[in-house]
């Protein structure tokens, strides 16, 4: 089995990979850790996209001008972008809160199982609350 895999991938060393997510039973500590990585990857790609958006925005001569279009593709793209913006907002708040939790771990605090689980729930709830506050304020400002 290993030999076959070795031949398929052509790897020279037979070092183990880190255990993948489907092996473990779901619990709150693994969930927060996995989602920390997932949101980090999502934020990395979104930062690249936003940076290139700024680059293309800066190349426009009349910076203040905006183009409007009533075509179907624009509506579809706009709804996709809205969904992506909500996902990115949640990822940012979650990565921010959980990153602070990780920094406290690096200082050697909060390793007790009960406190770690309680902090995980605090992180998730605060990230959700911040996302809901942000989105509702955007909707509120657009409505009025």
């Amino acid at each position, binding site marked *: 089995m290993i030999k076959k895999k070795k031949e398929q991938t052509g*790897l020279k060393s037979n*070092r183990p*990979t880190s255990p993948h997510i489907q092996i473990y039973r779901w619990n709150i500590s693994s969930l927060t850790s996995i989602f920390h*990585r997932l949101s980090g990857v999502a934020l990395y790609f979104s930062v690249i996209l936003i940076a290139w958006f700024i680059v293309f925005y800066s*190349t426009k001569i009349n910076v*203040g001008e905006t183009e409007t279009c009533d075509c179907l593709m624009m509506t579809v793209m706009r709804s996709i972008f809205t969904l992506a913006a909500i996902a990115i907002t949640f990822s940012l708040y979650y990565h921010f809160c959980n990153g602070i939790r990780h920094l406290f771990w690096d200082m050697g605090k909060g390793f007790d199982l009960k406190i770690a689980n309680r902090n995980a729930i605090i992180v998730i709830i605060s990230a959700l609350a911040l996302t809901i506050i942000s989105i509702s304020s955007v909707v509120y400002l657009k409505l009025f």
Partner: protein
Amino acid sequence: MNKIKIAPSTKSGSSHWLMQRFSAIALIPLTIWLTLSFVEILQDPQGYLPVFFAYPFNAVMGILLITTSLYHGSLGMRVIIEDYITNSFKIYFYIMLVNFTSILTAVASVIAILRLHLLS
């Protein structure tokens, strides 16, 4: 008896770990600035967004945010690539790809923000 082969230390792991934490600490105030500036922008997007980077503070914070987050992101992507890919050639290829993309994006966005700062 098989000899146990251990990958040679590159002597750069601890600085990687430390720099990831430093950039994470630096990103805390920058993220708060981003959220607060979004509050400002949303009050008048059409009027405020074109002149957003004309303010020196916004330009400085924008450049710092993009470069620091790309640095932090490339360090994080490196860890993820090393964890989930076994082929050593692929590992180096993807790490190089991530680094090149990050540097290219950082340089381009810094120049773009400077252009917006000077022109608008």
